[in-house]
């Protein structure tokens, strides 16, 4: 049964994992958005090779499982290229951010393409250079369209961080598993608490997402 004493016993143990979960999440968010923008822009580039190469990256990472990518990076990268990522940390962060970067790059690309052609024409008529057109006119509008989806992916990335326990990182779930294996009868309380931990971490992201949705509704073309 869930008792106060059980919770007070389990809670501090799980707390130890919070730091890793949050660190992996933050690093993945930063790298994920970075990959998304780089890949999104590369797919719009005039350079055919760059476009095809990025397309390959996006399709491979969207076409396979995150958990497979995680294991692959964890086991294979050091063997194949002699690259030692230094720690499980980077294998985890890279897997999550490359995976979600691939998904989000499609949002970046789609949003930029969906800014109306009239905007580019108006900017041209004001004699802006192609870089200025992107920076001052197209991109600021595209970002507003990206926000709601970007918000959704924050929560997806939070959920994804739980996978790093599988490569031995000491996150919340890792400590949960340890507690479970030491006392199986405690398992319901342990995993329920783990879920609550994740949900508490998700709450600010949920509200942020709603905020992003409302921002994105403002300042959009109404023609």
């Amino acid at each position, binding site marked *: 049964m869930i008792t106060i004493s059980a919770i007070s016993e389990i809670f501090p143990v799980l707390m130890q994992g919070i730091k890793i979960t949050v660190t992996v999440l933050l690093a993945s968010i930063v790298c994920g958005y970075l990959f998304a923008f780089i890949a999104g822009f590369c797919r719009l580039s005039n350079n055919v090779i760059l476009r095809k190469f990025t397309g390959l990256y996006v399709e491979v990472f969207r076409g396979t499982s995150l958990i497979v990518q995680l294991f692959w990076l964890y086991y294979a990268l050091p063997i194949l290229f002699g690259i030692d990522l230094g720690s499980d940390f980077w294998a985890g962060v890279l897997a999550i951010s490359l995976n979600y970067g691939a998904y989000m790059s499609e949002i970046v690309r789609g949003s930029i393409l969906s800014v109306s052609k009239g905007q580019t*024409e108006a900017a041209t008529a*004001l*004699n802006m*250079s*192609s870089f200025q057109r992107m920076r001052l006119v197209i991109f600021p*509008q595209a970002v507003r369209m990206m926000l709601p989806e970007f918000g959704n992916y924050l929560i997806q990335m939070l959920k994804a961080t739980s996978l790093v326990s599988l490569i031995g990182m000491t996150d919340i779930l890792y400590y949960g598993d340890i507690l479970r294996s030491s006392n199986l009868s405690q398992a319901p309380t342990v995993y329920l608490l783990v879920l609550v931990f994740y949900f508490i971490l998700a709450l600010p992201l949920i509200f942020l997402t709603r905020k992003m949705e409302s921002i994105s509704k403002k300042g959009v073309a109404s023609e």
Partner: protein
Amino acid sequence: MSEPIVTFQDVHKSFGDVKVLKGIDLEVKPAEKIAIIGPSGSGKTTIIRMLMTLEEPTAGDIIVDGNNLWKMEKNGKTVDANDKHLRAIRGDIGMVFQHFNLFPHMTILENCMTAIIHVKGENKEKAKKHSIEMLEKVGLGDKLDNYPSQLSGGQKQRVAMARALVMRPKVMLFDEVTSALDPELVGEVLEVIRGIAKDGEMAMILVTHEMDFALDVADKVLFLDEGVIAEQGSASQVIEHSKNERLQSFLKRFRS
């Protein structure tokens, strides 16, 4: 007579297999006001879009202030213009669009200021001052901090005009600027254009369906039909005294 600021020499334009323009010759003198009329699909808009560098001509030359717009010299050879070349020349030209194309993420003031700052390199204070002056001129001095979505169609189009005017182009293009407006909002926009025309120094090319307005403002009217200029002359010559049958039947539809 002064040198023309814009010259079209046998300009052709096709979209795929469809020939839209079949040899356009045209001269625009500084400060001259030209109205282009004609049935829809006759290529009126295409003419000014090529001048604004939004479409590339299939053949022929467009000369702006002595420079070939779509061609440039490179290593002694004539080649297609690159973006840098286009940019150097199209600063003389401004355009107002049928659907306004205001930047929805910027306030009215920012819509006007952005290009002067980033394209012309004016400092922010000056840019702001000029923009406010121009917006006051079109009667929107009280809307500076509004966003385009908060304005009526007529107001949007006036902002679009202020945005183009503040760049001080030598030639201003108007692409059916009243056809996306509700009828009761047309007047305020035409009034602003009339005011600009009276100022005088800027050449204007207006693609329009407003015949009375064309008659009033334009020094010269072109009737475009099936990809060629079928009739041209002073406004009263073309609109009131032409013998061209297709022009007559075209006008009838607007005068009923």
